[in-house]
């Protein structure tokens, strides 16, 4: 959409390091091919998801206006960017931020992108990512180039891939940590990004790191892999490693991660994860999307069998020099303070004192603190991001991170700078107290923008925050310390399972009308890396949820035993008693008595879920072979462009590469580890597909395979205008034949 989209590539050509620049060029070509109908919409959907380009509510063109479904008539008509996803419909761009670590320049670019491509706001997710909403797909290559120019990729931010590697935002400065997990989160993130063994998953895969067992910050128990820092003595040396967990996950049915290894040495982290990825890719469910996360595989096999398979796979892995290289590189990076250590301030306004109490956490390095910048509902404006960039430059060496509670933390603040830091944050409206307490409510996007949202999680979050803020100072300390988390549906993006008071959106029919509700989930344990999940108690109409909060809070304050946690209080009270306490709040008055119950928080339309879409969280099941074939087609397309530009040699080479991609894709069905070596590809293709006649066309026999062999033989001879044109034609035919072959022999699961 942006007029300048045509210029950014040229403008940033010096700033883009490879492979980021090349990857974005490829994605842009894929967009063009989809626009021309040359890529299947299902393949393109997964392709864009793996670039973080996600769908958004109403992107099927249907929107309920409170009375009826209305069709949104976009200029591109019925053109699609995925199944039931219209081209022109705005979407969401997710941006990966490994372990939440950023610098000031990156914050500034994020602000620019929010203004120019989105709605002026950046949203922080519960997995330390950024999200921009209402983004047009045509703008995404420019947006990605601008991110890449400051070292950020959106690759594998969505889709069936390894998602953002999260880590405790206090890593490196927390007094309770065993050691700083940052280098290991960074190394794993770099190692798995685009790794061939992670391209064929049935669902997403989420890693997390924590520096200790007791705090919540890493949430390792609810991740596909969770690594908790540990040390062991070996002789007179202290060895670093991890208590290593697998198979955790939230979603509709949450699973606690299982202990895989009591002590996994740090040097084993990367290869063991690679082996896990291989087992997950090989044995994980691909047909039934509802059972495709690793938690089901681990559960089905049992942890012992799963572990045995992983160790077997690990034993077969060749030593990859990248593993130790990435670890040692990451370990050599250290954060430093900008200012000298200082004393903690003694005086200040009441609000400043309150902010010190809730938003400041002492570091293990004496004289330094971490300051939390609380963001209502995880949102921050472009102007605020620029102010934050100025602030982190002024007081630190740009040591800022995002958190899973949708906030920022500024690390390495000298204690003596706290009054000035507070003032600067206050000017930017970023000095809200209450970090990590009951008003610091976490909410996923819900019905605001998510295709799967059932109830307005952000609307409820805003309402609760507004009500609780006005009386937060009067609240009992035990109430202030509670966590509220809201999801718009059962998929748990708001992490409601691990809150004291969790809510997830559901719908109920009352008197012929749909009524927004929230299921109340109580007693989840946030600490000890999300040790226990809450239990659903009862569904309550949305408009009564604030009463649920105040009633439960009051009951807890009045009836708790000395020192009893909310979780223990709920456990002791029992489900029946708690439900009884909320019984009268279940009732919905008749529509003509109180129509407010029939619309959701922050949305005056009469409530309906009839415009709910098909979620893209699960991505599309597209095998690695299909990706290879799509890449092959793109290469032939690029070869045509090069030929048109008179770049004959490059055109020939690119067409030949396209053939190699297609051949490699087919070989991958039988030889998972096929390399990029051309002779190896030829040899394997001949053995597996030519000699067996599997590739043979029913009419043309081995003709198209011979195009490949001939192209390989001539690949060192150089290309003329005629030979490159001919090769492009032959490459196209070879790829068509590869598709046909794949359709004939592919396992049903890959095509379902």
């Amino acid at each position: 959409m942006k007029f300048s989209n045509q210029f950014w590539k040229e403008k940033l050509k010096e700033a883009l390091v490879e492979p980021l620049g090349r990857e974005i060029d490829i994605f842009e070509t894929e967009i063009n091919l989809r626009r021309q109908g040359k890529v299947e919409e299902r393949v393109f959907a997964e392709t864009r998801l793996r670039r973080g380009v996600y769908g958004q509510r109403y992107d099927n063109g249907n929107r309920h206006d409170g009375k009826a479904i209305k069709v949104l008539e976009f200029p591109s008509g019925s053109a699609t960017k995925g199944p039931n996803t219209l081209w022109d419909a705005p979407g969401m761009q997710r941006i990966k931020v490994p372990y939440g670590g950023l610098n000031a320049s990156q914050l500034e670019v994020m602000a620019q992108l929010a203004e120019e491509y989105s709605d002026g706001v950046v949203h922080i997710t519960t997995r330390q990512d950024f999200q921009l909403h209402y983004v047009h797909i045509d703008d995404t290559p420019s947006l990605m180039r601008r991110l890449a120019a400051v070292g950020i990729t959106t690759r594998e931010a969505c889709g069936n891939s390894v998602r953002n590697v999260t880590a405790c935002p206090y890593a490196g400065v927390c007094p309770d940590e065993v050691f700083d997990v940052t280098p290991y989160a960074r190394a794993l993130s770099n190692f798995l990004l685009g790794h061939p063994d992670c391209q064929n998953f049935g669902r997403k895969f989420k890693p997390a790191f924590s520096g200790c067992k007791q705090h919540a910050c890493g949430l390792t128990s609810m991740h596909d892999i969770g690594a908790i820092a540990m040390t062991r003595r070996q002789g007179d040396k202290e060895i670093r490693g991890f208590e290593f967990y697998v198979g955790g996950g939230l979603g509709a049915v949450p699973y606690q991660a299982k202990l895989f290894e009591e002590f996994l040495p740090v040097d084993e982290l990367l290869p063991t994860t690679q082996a896990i990825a291989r087992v997950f890719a090989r044995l994980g469910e691909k047909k039934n999307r509802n059972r495709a996360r690793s938690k089901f595989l681990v559960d089905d096999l049992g942890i012992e069998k799963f572990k045995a398979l992983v160790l077997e796979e690990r034993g077969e892995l060749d030593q990859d020099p990248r593993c130790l290289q990435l670890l040692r590189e990451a370990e050599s990076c250290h954060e430093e303070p900008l200012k000298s250590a200082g004393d903690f301030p003694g005086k200040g306004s009441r609000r400043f004192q309150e902010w010190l109490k809730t938003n400041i956490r002492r570091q293990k390095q004496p004289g330094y603190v971490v300051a939390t910048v609380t963001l209502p509902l995880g949102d921050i404006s472009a102007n605020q991001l620029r102010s934050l960039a100025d602030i982190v430059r002024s007081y630190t060496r740009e040591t800022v991170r995002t958190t899973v509670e949708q906030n920022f933390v500024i690390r390495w603040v000298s204690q003596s700078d706290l009054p000035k830091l507070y003032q600067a944050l206050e000017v930017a409206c970023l000095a809200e107290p209450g970090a990590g307490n009951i008003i610091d409510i976490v909410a996923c996007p819900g019905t605001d923008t998510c295709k799967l949202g059932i109830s307005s999680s952000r609307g409820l979050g805003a309402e609760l925050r507004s009500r609780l803020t006005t009386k937060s100072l009067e609240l009992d300390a035990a109430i202030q310390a509670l966590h509220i988390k809201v999801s718009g549906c059962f998929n748990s993006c708001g992490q409601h399972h691990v809150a004291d008071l969790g809510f997830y959106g559901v719908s109920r029919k009352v008197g012929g009308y749909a009524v927004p509700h929230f299921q109340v989930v109580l007693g989840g344990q946030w600490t000890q890396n999300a040790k226990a999940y809450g239990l659903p108690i009862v569904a309550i109409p949305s408009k009564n949820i604030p009463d649920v909060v105040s009633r439960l809070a009051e009951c807890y304050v009045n009836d708790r035993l000395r020192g009893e946690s909310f979780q223990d209080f709920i456990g002791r009270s029992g489900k029946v008693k708690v439900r009884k306490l909320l019984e009268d709040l279940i009732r919905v008055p008749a529509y003509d008595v109180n129509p407010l119950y029939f619309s959701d928080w922050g949305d005056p339309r009469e409530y309906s879920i009839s415009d709910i879409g098909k979620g893209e969280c699960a991505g599309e099941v597209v095998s690695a072979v299909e990706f290879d074939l799509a890449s092959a087609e793109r290469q032939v397309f690029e070869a045509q462009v090069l030929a048109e530009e008179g770049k004959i040699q490059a055109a020939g080479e690119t067409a030949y590469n396209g053939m190699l991609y297609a051949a490699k894709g087919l070989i991958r069905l039988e030889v998972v580890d096929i390399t990029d070596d051309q002779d190896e590809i030829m040899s394997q293709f001949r053995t597996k597909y030519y000699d067996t006649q599997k590739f043979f066309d029913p009419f043309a026999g081995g003709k198209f395979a011979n195009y490949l062999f001939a192209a390989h033989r001539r690949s060192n001879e150089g290309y003329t205008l005629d030979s490159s044109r001919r090769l492009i034609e032959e490459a196209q035919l070879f790829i068509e034949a590869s598709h046909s072959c794949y359709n004939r022999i592919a396992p049903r699961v890959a095509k379902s």
Partner: protein
Amino acid sequence: MELQHINVKLHLKNSGVADLEPLISVFHDWVKEQSCEEILIDVADYRHVPGGPGIILIGHEADFSLDEGDRHLGVRYNRKAPLPGSNQSRFRQALKAALETCNKLEADPRLSGNLNLECQDIELFINDRLLAPNDPSTHHLVIPEIQQFYDDLFGKKNYLINHQEDPRKLFSVLVHLFQPINRANLLKKFAAS
């Protein structure tokens, strides 16, 4: 120099005191009725972001909002889709759309007494840093064009113009009129041109 993605924000006089909640219903109705030239898609409520974009009516070709950016409440038109024609015609299109938005808001009884839509300050942004980086070269090239636009509309001596200089922000100029805008007259002028 081709300028696209023109934004116009009409600064309202009751900055900071308005209750924006009724606007959510108003904008939802606009989506329902598709009451603008642009395709209207959804409503985004950012009242919880201080000094943020307020409440936005998301459209395909443009967004409309009661924007609270830089602590000034204003009616903002954010043109997203490129437009043909000259820079002058694009300035005109954006200002006209912002004025018409004010008229529509004024006509809605749900907002009466809540919003004072009187305006004497017009902020014009170029929402594209590649086309118009906020630097002296853009200033040199664009300010005369913008002055020409305002001269034609208001007369040379009837306003002050200020350029916002933070290079990180969007290129923008704020025009302070010596008299409040007469929306009806301006729209008539646009209709006649």
